[in-house]
């Protein structure tokens, strides 16, 4: 057991956890931030994507201890002052989800993607979403939503 201290969505948090605790479980079980989903056991699906020091990572493939001292942003931390992040607004507008299980991860990846590519091409979007799986939508509306998110971000 060790005490792990990290900043999540702008707030400092400390909690005791076993050394083997994954960041995804730490966020969900210790901090009760259950918006971060766990969809696979094999680092493939990206449902668990969060930002660590500004980069999209799979929180199921990182130990909470590795995030000690880092700044983590989860889906709960994207909206600011009651206003949805452009990626969240675009996913709603473009109906880029069905069951919604993959959506938190898709949105976190999208948020990082449009920061890196403010006007992404279809190829950049498809390549950029390679680490996120969706079993419902067939991806078409997700790709549309990423484009729309970039537009909304620009308009902001």
């Amino acid at each position, binding site marked *: 057991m*060790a005490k792990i201290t990290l900043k999540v969505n702008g707030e400092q948090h400390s909690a005791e956890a*076993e*050394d*083997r605790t*994954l960041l995804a479980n730490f966020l969900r079980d210790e901090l009760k931030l259950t918006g971060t989903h766990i969809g696979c*056991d*094999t*680092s*493939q699906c*990206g449902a668990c*994507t969060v930002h660590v020091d500004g*980069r*999209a*990572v*799979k929180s199921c*493939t*990182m*130990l909470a*201890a*590795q995030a*000690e001292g880092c700044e983590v942003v989860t889906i709960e931390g994207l909206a600011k002052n009651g206003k949805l992040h452009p990626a969240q607004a675009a996913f709603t507008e473009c109906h880029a989800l069905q069951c919604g299980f993959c959506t938190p991860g898709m949105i976190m*990846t999208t948020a*990082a*993607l449009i920061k890196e590519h403010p006007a992404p091409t279809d190829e950049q979007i498809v390549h*950029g979403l*390679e*680490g*996120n799986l969706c079993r419902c939508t067939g991806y078409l509306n997700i790709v549309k939503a990423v484009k729309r998110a970039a537009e909304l971000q620009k308009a902001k």
Partner: protein
Amino acid sequence: MYAFQYRRAKSLSEAAEVLAKDEDARPLSGGMTLIPTLKQRLAQPTQLVDIAGLPELGGIDCRNGVLTIGAATRHADVAASKVVQDAIPALACLAAGIGDPQVRNRGTLGGSVANNDPAADYPAAVLALNAKVVTTKREIAADDFFQGMFTTALEPGELIVKIAFPLPKAAAYCKFPHPASGYAMAGVFIAQAGDGLRVAVTGAGASGVFRWAEAEQALAKGISAAAIEKLTLAADDINEDIHGTREYRAQLVKVMATRAAAALSGKK
């Protein structure tokens, strides 16, 4: 996962010391291979020594005709590095094609090379570019480093510090990615240097990355796609699994080599 102790190393010498004292301790870099392995209970280390943040393992530097990249450099940082893009564009391009963005944001050069997965991308670059693997103990030539699937010349507790790539005149990498993981079904790295041309193949060899001698000889006379098209790669030592038969993979290697050669001949 079985329980283990996590510790963040404060220096390279501390990490080496802990690993030397405890043969069941393992270095942890990006964790993109080690953590999935632990999750499947395929390994049971006593301690994980986190080396990812060590300044001794960082840095990208190009001087005197050699590009040196620290072992803990993440794939995304190699891909985005202006220094790498200018020095060996094929290497930046290779890094940009590893797995997916989240994997590239964590996974590191040293972890990939130390792991020597038969389908990993970096081993092909290290071998074709005739790079030197610099460790906490010595320098190891690429030809001596890779010793079969998941096996390298590294001794227990020995850590990769950096990799030194002599600048080629030209280089190209083509891979056929596995559609789900991005790992190479077949990947071919061709590097043309002052002292000769090397062709390294990953994803296909039954004992991991290998040099394709016939292709090297054929291209030494002049780089062209046609030179590869005449060759046949014997399927005997090619890997076979649910993703493809050995004959299919041997053919894929040839196609990737043809594409890499075409890219190179276009560049000249």
